[in-house]
């Protein structure tokens, strides 16, 4: 069952990567990359139990932290990009 979970995780990551390549807007790409990162955490956790070495779970924990911080950082970078290009005082007030 662990091997079936690994195959399903790889299929899901391929579909999320397809959406990240196809995505018409930048938010679609960020959404797909967020899902890809969450599934990467799960993939590392399942690989730990497949290989029988539970010490690798630290890598999954650190990757979950880095994934969340990177998604929030990229979203803050693109948040007021499209609508506030002509009015800078509102952007600085926020």
């Amino acid at each position: 069952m662990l091997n079936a979970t690994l195959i399903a995780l790889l299929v899901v990551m391929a579909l999320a990567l397809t959406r990240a390549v196809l995505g018409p807007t930048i938010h679609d790409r960020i959404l797909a990359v967020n899902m890809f990162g969450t599934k990467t955490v799960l993939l590392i956790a399942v690989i730990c139990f497949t290989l029988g070495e539970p010490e690798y779970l630290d890598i999954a924990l650190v990757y979950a932290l880095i994934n969340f911080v990177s998604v929030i950082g990229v979203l803050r970078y693109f948040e007021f990009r499209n609508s506030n290009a002509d009015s800078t005082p509102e952007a600085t007030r926020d």
Partner: protein
Amino acid sequence: MIDTLLSYASGLLLLLGCFFMLTGAIGLLRFPDYYSRMHAAGITDTLATFLIISGLMLAAGWSLALFKLGLIMLFIFFTSPTASHALARSAQLSALRLPHMPAEATHKNNKRTRTMATSESNTAGPEPETAVDTRT
């Protein structure tokens, strides 16, 4: 006896997690607009993570790996809805509005509705009627 029961329960949880995960990925790929795609991805992220990590917890037994898996699950429970909320808020604040609004009304009232959304204190003027007109 109890070991085979635990392995069956673990396999069942992993199978349910795989099902919800594949459902969310197909929804992310096939749904027509951004907000429905975010609905599919944001719901199934949390649920599939809960199911798969619960299945791994049942497979782990009483060890340090159980504590680490619980820590990962707790952290994803906090961060996944926060990331979904940040994605929705960022899309709503940028040019990607909800799709049933007419395009010329969106372009005309984009700045006004955004200032209403960001600063609630100074909106006692005639703006609410126009905001209602844009929503319908």
